[in-house]
């Protein structure tokens, strides 16, 4: 009886067992917000450029960082058109990213410490706050041929990556 009871007790205890959830929420501590859409200017038949001197508009993206020194801003300028007329020739791409505006004077040093490779620029977000980055993009059509008429769209990829 005692064993039975014991077994029952053990049985009943195993039946009553529940998984207790532990909930938690981690707020996003790095937010990327598109600020200004870029526009390609067409200073010559075979060139599309976002530079203001070429009649373009530089795209701007804002990074809001709550925690200092935990994130990197990784920005990649376009290497292809996401939308364009059919292009028979190759397009040569150049691009860069730079600090446009800061919410703390110390962020001005991001430009000095940035790392560039291929079409990508990395900024170490060491200070909490908002930083605005502007990107420059230039596309030159191969063989000095004019770009075919039509709409051209290219994408800048802006990522916030934990260090």
């Amino acid at each position, binding site marked *: 009886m005692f064993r039975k009871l014991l077994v029952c007790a053990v049985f009943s205890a195993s039946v009553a067992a529940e998984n207790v959830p532990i909930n938690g929420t981690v707020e996003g501590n790095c937010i990327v917000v598109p600020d200004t859409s870029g526009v390609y200017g067409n200073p010559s038949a075979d060139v599309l450029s976002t530079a203001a001197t070429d009649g373009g508009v530089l795209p701007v993206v804002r990074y809001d960082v709550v925690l200092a020194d935990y994130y990197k801003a990784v920005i990649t300028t376009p290497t292809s058109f996401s939308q364009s007329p059919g292009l028979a020739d190759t397009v040569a791409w150049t691009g860069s990213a730079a600090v446009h505006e*800061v919410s703390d*004077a*110390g962020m001005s040093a991001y430009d000095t410490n940035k790392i560039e490779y291929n079409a990508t620029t990395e900024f170490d977000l060491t200070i909490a706050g908002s930083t605005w980055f502007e990107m420059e993009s230039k596309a030159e059509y191969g063989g000095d041929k004019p770009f075919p008429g039509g709409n051209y769209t290219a994408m800048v990829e802006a990522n916030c990556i934990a260090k």
Partner: protein
Amino acid sequence: MVYSHFSYSSDIVFGQSLNAASDGMRWVMTNVLPQQMGLEVTNVLYRYTAVKDPDTGMIVYVQNEDTANEGEYVFRSVDDWSGLPGNTITKSIPVNAILGSRFGDGEIVVEGEGRVDDPFIVYSYRFDPCFNPQSSPDCEGFIPPIPDIPEVADPLEDDYVQDEIDRKAVMRSEEDEEEEREGVVEGSEEDLEKQMLEERLGIAMESSLAAMDNATEMALANMNVFPNSYSASLTSPEYVSKAYISDNGTLVKTLVRQSRGIRMNNAQDKLHRALVRSQFER
């Protein structure tokens, strides 16, 4: 300065100033914030571009004097650009609902080498329009003002009038005391007898005065002080005047007939008018 906008949420009014630094690096807060009782500043947002050499030192202060504590600042933000390249900075700084009246004059101060371009500073604020319930009849707790009733001056409270009243009261009491002492009641037989006695005494007094005057006159006359003409009577002769003009016809003949005179006057007037008119017609 005009304030950018208000937005109403229940009873509290929220608003934002325009660019306080639009006219330079110093600004007067009374021109920036609405002069509203109980107004609180909740946020300060500023932006400027620091232009400098990366190797030089530069510190920028954005600040407001504290009207409650002289020499201190109710708001102060410091940007140290030393050893950094210049850039455009945008800062939004929450303020712990400090009364707007404490915000004294604001300024942007640059220490070191470099300059500030395109300064832009905006104050966010809020206020309760019914902070003072008397500001509007729509406010809860509004008490209709009682009109000022002009104070009416009571002439009896005037010192001079009061003194006069007291004086008369004293005189009256003295008269009453005198009458009481004499025991005479007005209109009684004793009173009438007293009046008759006074009248007789007055007549006697007049007679004695007249007799005294006569005696004095007689004494002076005996001393020959007055000339004789003083008491001599004047004769009054009768002057009869019977003046008349006897008309034997000569007087009437010498008079000019009136109708002739009128005609002469008319002729002279006519001639005069002709002369005057001829001057104008020339």
